[in-house]
């Protein structure tokens, strides 16, 4: 879907990005992770040609982006900025309608789509006629997301979209983000320097340092098979939480006891990560959850059983 091939960007003598290659699959969520100044933003902006690469090629749908007119290319790529970049002189509705107007949509279509998005993003329709500065940071960020999604572009680029939000708001938006069907269909490249966020939202992660990719892979690969000490050190902080987020219920499936389905318990798909499942326990005695795999297989497990399986899994990884 997106292929970045040996791309470099030099600002004078500074090698902001230095020979980076990666691919993103259709509907995949790739995270560019790294410390400040390692070249994440520069890499991202080369994909919609806000920055022209010094070397290398980038392909979207197999087409070299350098061969397309930049305005046309950009209208097919959603872009969300850290401090939202909403137009302060436009109302919320006008802000969302920028791209539809560029695409010459008729008014009704734009209005209908706007209303749909406002609902999906839990935004009150009364906000449509006010100006961005009258909204909270979290609301503004959602409008920024709506603006990027309105024309339903297949690709979404996000540069620290939740960086400016407080922790509570951020985890709330994370949850909504994962639940949003609009986003499930999209190929997303997201920049962050927050490891937890990367593990929570990313299908795969490219860990960058000094303009180069140090390691790319699934969260679990980075966590359990780090290629060097840099990767290990980078993930050292709150490691247990990262492990919970990196491991999915399906990874533990074989290690969980066969137990019959219990009707009352809440139910999780096997694709869910362990962190989310553990978080749902309310610590009543004898509490269990249902895990369903491939729609027909179900296992009912308790908190202790999940933890036991987790340690077994880790042992297993360590000896592999």
């Amino acid at each position: 879907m997106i292929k970045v091939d040996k791309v470099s960007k030099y600002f004078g003598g500074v090698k902001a990005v230095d020979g980076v290659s990666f691919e993103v699959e259709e509907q995949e969520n790739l995270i560019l992770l790294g410390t400040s100044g390692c070249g994440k933003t520069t890499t991202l902006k080369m994909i919609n040609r806000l920055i022209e690469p010094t070397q290398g090629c980038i392909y979207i749908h197999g087409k070299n982006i350098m061969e397309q007119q930049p305005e046309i290319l950009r209208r097919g790529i959603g872009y969300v900025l850290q401090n939202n970049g909403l137009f302060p002189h436009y109302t919320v509705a006008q802000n969302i309608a920028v791209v539809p107007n560029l695409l010459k949509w008729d008014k009704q279509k734009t209005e209908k789509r706007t209303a749909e998005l406002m609902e999906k993003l839990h935004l009150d329709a009364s906000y449509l006629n006010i100006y961005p500065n009258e909204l909270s940071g979290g609301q503004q960020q959602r409008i920024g997301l709506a603006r990027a999604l309105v024309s339903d572009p297949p690709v979404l680029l996000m540069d620290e979209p939740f960086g400016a939000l407080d922790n509570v708001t951020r985890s709330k938006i994370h949850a909504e983000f994962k639940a949003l069907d609009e986003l499930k269909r999209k190929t997303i490249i997201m920049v962050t320097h927050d490891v937890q966020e990367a593990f929570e939202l990313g299908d795969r992660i490219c860990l960058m340092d000094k303009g180069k990719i140090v390691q790319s892979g699934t969260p679990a690969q980075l966590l359990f098979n780090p290629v060097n000490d840099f990767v290990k050190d980078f993930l050292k902080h709150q490691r247990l939480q990262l492990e919970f987020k990196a491991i999915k219920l399906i990874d533990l499936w074989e290690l969980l006891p066969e137990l019959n389905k219990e009707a009352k318990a809440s139910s999780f798909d096997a694709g869910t990560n362990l962190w989310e499942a553990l978080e749902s326990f309310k610590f009543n005695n004898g509490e269990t959850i249902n895990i369903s795999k491939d729609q027909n297989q179900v296992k009912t497990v308790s908190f202790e059983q999940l933890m036991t399986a987790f340690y077994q899994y880790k042992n297993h990884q360590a000896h592999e």
Partner: protein
Amino acid sequence: MNEQQQTLWQFMQQQAGKLQEQTLQHIGLTFISLCIAVLVGLPLGILIVRKKQLSGIVLGIAGVLQTIPSIALLGFMIPLLGIGPKPAIVALLLYALLPIIRNTYTGILGVDAAVKEAAVAMGMSKWQILFKVELPLAMPVIFAGIRTATVINVGVATLASLIAAGGLGEFIFGGISLNNTNMILAGAIPSALLAVIFDLLLSMVQKVSFKKLKRVVYAFPVLLIVLCLFYIIPAKSEGKLTAGFTPEFMGRQDGDLGLRSKYGLKIHTIVISDAVMYKAAFEKHLDVISGYSTDGRLKAYDLVVLDDDKHIFPPYYAAPIVRDDVLKKFPDLEPTLNLLSGKINDSVMTVLNYRTDYLHQSPERVAKDFLVANKLWRPERGGNDGIVRIGSKIFGEQYILANMYSMLIKGYTDHEVSTKTGLGGTKICFDALTNNQIDFYPEYTGTGLLAILQASPEIINEVTVNKDSTYNYVQRQFESKYQIKWLKPIGFNNAYALMMRQQQARKLGIKTISNLKQFLDKK
């Protein structure tokens, strides 16, 4: 105070037609130049945002233009564009450019980088970004620039009257020359009001919310154009000859008013500053001007004085006028100042003026050369017996006289001298004298009679029949009214005169003002 206000009010009512015309001209001048300045400055500002390497040069040039004194800038315009509205508008436009270019530039650069980046990333084109994002967001800053430019223009536009472009300056400068406070105020108050009103209106525009911005952006140009239409460009002469008269001359009985009443002279007339009038006549922008009979430029520009065959111009014999208390304090001052009396006639004064005004010799040198040639010069005695303060008006002849007096006092007495030259017009000089800021200055009998004493027409008719009766009258009046003494006349008569280019006058056979009238009356 109350009486003063009343008379000002009466003056304004009496001159309502003129006042309205001048105000409209003033507004028109301000906004025509502003319009053009916006049309030029806005694109230039945008250009230097796009091409930053040009920004230094463009802002630099606009900045330098702004530092040129307005009178000088108007002066530069005359050889290029002549006189009248054209050079005035160009000069105003040049002043208005800097704030508009600079604010457009900083306004656009000041737009939040994240907003611009979002616009680019959504696929807007350069022009779409300019018109939909950059300009609207820079608008408050740009309006601030337009506001500054407007206030500057309302002020500078008063000077437009000096080069025959009309406006409220006609009253202001006429009033200063004529020592007529009401006339000054009739020009100054409306122009100050205009500045305040436009400043206020534009500050409201500047603070307008984004919601109303669109309406303002459309309404503003329309309003500008309407305001421009106020300027009914002074109609170009249909007659054969064009006259240029100073604002002072226009308002005087012994000026334009007398020309009309006594000679019945009807000539297309524009108002212009004395500083540029002679040159404009020389360059054929004007045919007849009101000048001074001893002006050095008469010689420099080859002009001739038309004979005042009906004697409307009263005598203007120059003499030092001194406060009585000064003469008492410095008893040797009077004989020293009188050393010059009878020594300088019209043609001598014209040559002296020619040397300073046209050959640009220093008044000091011209004064010394004259004193030495007439065996009046003595080396300084270097005494320290009190300071005598000499004043002078703001033109060459007065500088020369002030220098001569200074040298005489230093050579013949033990007093020190301080000179306060360039005290503007008659009013400023005379007020300085009565308020004990200077001790004496050279004044002219006619000015004393008309501008300072403001004698009634009957008295004027009575005393201007010859130079002595004028001198005697002002001497008596000044003594009793102000305790100021007129010393002996210096000898020359710097009277008003109508003048034309020598060549043209000869060709048309015009020697007297009556000849001129006859020529104009011929169909």
